[in-house]
């Protein structure tokens, strides 16, 4: 079995079989991560560049670990956004990297479409580690993996993505992936943070967080990016926490056993109360561990394609 695509740019249009294959392969690698020696020789001799045009600690470390555990040679290339507002340098940087004969590129970029642009100027396999507010496919894959691990299925599950949907690449990848796998997807958040035409993607919009808790099996709670533009879209953190924050009281009031995911880092007291963030419903740290396995699976499947 192999993937039908040479790159992983997003989950839009990725067939069910591919997602299934990645999740199943991740299960194998998940087992490797429990061994005393967490390393397999699968990608020995392959060179991978982690090209990060945007700050990211978690995603980058997760990819780096995945690469090391597959025995690939990896190089980090971090570029500060301020020095590369021109596309020319992006193209030149890429040509330079390609001239160094790399096999795969993991790219995080502040502009939507940048990974696709890369596939046009270089031959390496490209993995999107987040492009602008477009997609973040490995995050969605690890979310799906974690849900499946806990609830044993994806098909028929009701999953609600909570928070700033407009400025989230995690939301869009989750919507595409989960819909492909047969889940029922909804979004919940302040209307200023919900894209106007999101319903055309087959997604239900819920404005009331209590309703979202009652109706769903899973909540994937997004980080409110307080440091970014998103801050202009709601009046105050207090108001956001009051009307959209997930608290123990809220979970108790709605009396429902619900699975809670969060891509991290958490704003405690904003989108999740500390009690919930450390509570029994959440699988947040599980997601982090699974993230390495899922990224190993993606790297392995793309890196061993002919």
């Amino acid at each position: 079995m192999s993937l039908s695509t040479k790159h992983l740019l997003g989950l839009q249009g990725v067939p069910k079989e591919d997602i299934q294959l990645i999740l199943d392969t991740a299960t194998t690698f998940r087992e490797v991560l429990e061994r005393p020696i967490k390393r397999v020789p699968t990608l020995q001799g392959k060179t991978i560049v982690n090209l990060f045009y945007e700050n990211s600690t978690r995603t980058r470390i997760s990819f780096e670990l995945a690469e090391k555990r597959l025995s690939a040679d990896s190089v980090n290339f971090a570029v500060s956004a301020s020095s590369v507002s021109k596309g020319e340098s992006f193209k030149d940087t890429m040509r330079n990297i390609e001239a160094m004969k790399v096999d795969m590129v993991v790219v995080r970029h502040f502009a939507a479409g940048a990974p696709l642009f890369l596939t046009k100027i270089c031959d390496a396999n490209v993995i999107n580690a987040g492009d602008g507010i477009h997609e973040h496919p490995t995050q969605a894959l690890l979310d799906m993996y974690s849900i499946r691990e806990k609830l044993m299925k994806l098909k028929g599950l009701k999953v609600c993505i909570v928070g700033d949907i407009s400025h989230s690449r995690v939301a869009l990848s989750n919507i595409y992936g989960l819909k492909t796998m047969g889940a029922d997807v909804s979004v919940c958040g302040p209307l200023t943070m919900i894209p106007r035409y999101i319903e055309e993607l087959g997604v239900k919009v819920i404005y009331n967080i209590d309703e979202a808790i009652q109706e769903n099996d899973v909540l994937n709670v997004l980080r409110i990016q307080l440091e970014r533009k998103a801050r202009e879209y709601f009046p105050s953190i207090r108001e956001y926490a009051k009307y959209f924050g997930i608290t123990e009281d809220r979970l108790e009031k709605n009396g429902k056993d619900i699975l809670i995911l969060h891509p991290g880092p958490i704003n405690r007291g904003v989108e999740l109360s500390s009690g919930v963030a450390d509570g029994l419903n959440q699988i947040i740290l599980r997601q982090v561990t699974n993230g390495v396995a899922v990224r190993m699976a993606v790297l392995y499947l793309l890196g061993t394609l002919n």
Partner: protein
Amino acid sequence: MELPSGWQFYISSELLIKGIIMKAVLKNINLLHPGQKLNEKEIDILLVNGLISKIGNLTKVDSAGAEVFNLSGKYVVPGLFDMHVHLREPGREDEETVITGCNAAANGGYTGIACMPNTEPAIDSVEVVELIRKQASAHLVDVHIVGAATLGRKGEVISPMAELKDAGVVAFSDDGVAIKTAGILKRIFEYSKMFNIPIIEHCEDESLASGAMNEGVNSTMLGLPPIPSIAEDLIVIRDILVSEYTGGRIHIAHISTKKSIEFVREAKRKGLKVSAEVTPHHFTLTDDSVKTYDTNTKMSPPLRSQHDLDEICRGLQDGTIDCIASDHAPHSIEEKEAEFEHAPNGITGLETQVGLALTELFHKNILNLEKLIEKMAINPRKVLNIPVPKFEAGQIANFTILDIDEIWTVDLTKSKSKSINSPFDKRLLTGKAVAVINKGTMFYQDKYIML
């Protein structure tokens, strides 16, 4: 034989001159002039020294010694006029100059253009107007100039409109952006009313237009920051209201939304002084084209939805939209080869416009040929108070010659423009301009010929 001085730039622009012809016969042409209600089939035109000498059946004496162009089945129409062109000179001569822009216009079938004022410096002084006029003076393409409505297009102080008008400016605009506030717009309308000159508006509310593409399901799917259609609608209705209040003339540039067209239709029904133009890309493409993240699908206003495109076609049919204009906006490859969000807005259009209009509007039965020529040659001149070329003996021959059925493929490597930022490369089109004639010069088969 010595060439007249004006010919220097044709030589320097490396376009071959075939020669000089004193007498020319355009044979077996179809003559179409909607303004004069002329629609003649299979007739001849005799040109002597660049003037129309005779139209109709020519005798042997008439055509003695003349160079004969057999143009059987081709249409001779009044020289086409593109009222929305960015020539980039002064300031960005690496992207386009007055001469290369004129060459692209001639190659695309245009004998007249109006150039927009968002140069560096902006066209807000007589000096800049004179510079452009001087560069363009010898070219067969008539270059008319749109002056900045405010100094530096900053939306703060009115430009020296009277002086600019005397220097030959035909309209005012802060194109690239809308005139900043209703307050300054009101003053501009009041002031410009003294000269009966139109204000051309790029309608876009700045506070809503910071995105990269049309707001719709595609912007959501592509993760590109959206520009809602109301960004345009709001300024269109603002401008119509201020124009009505002051009695000033408003021309809506590159109209692109359903609502805006409805507003213009309603304003026209009320008899207000409103006109509008549309670009070929807005009647050809929708925001579906952005799916490839091709930065040549990024322009301002952005490509819209199918229901906007359908309304554009209705607006063209019922006369709500008066003109077709390219918004020819050359950009360097380096600038366009960027991440979509960072790439500049705009595409070139002078050389694909006739082909797109014939393919998308005429051959798809949206407009007949008369209506199409009205919108491409006659109405733009009327909006700008420029005389429409006449087809009668003694007049300067100002013609575009069209082959409405020729099937051809766009090849940007053959573009005369300095820039090639167009989404239409390799596109198959039906119908193109075969030649243009104006000011005693003909552009035909890639060469300039003096008549």
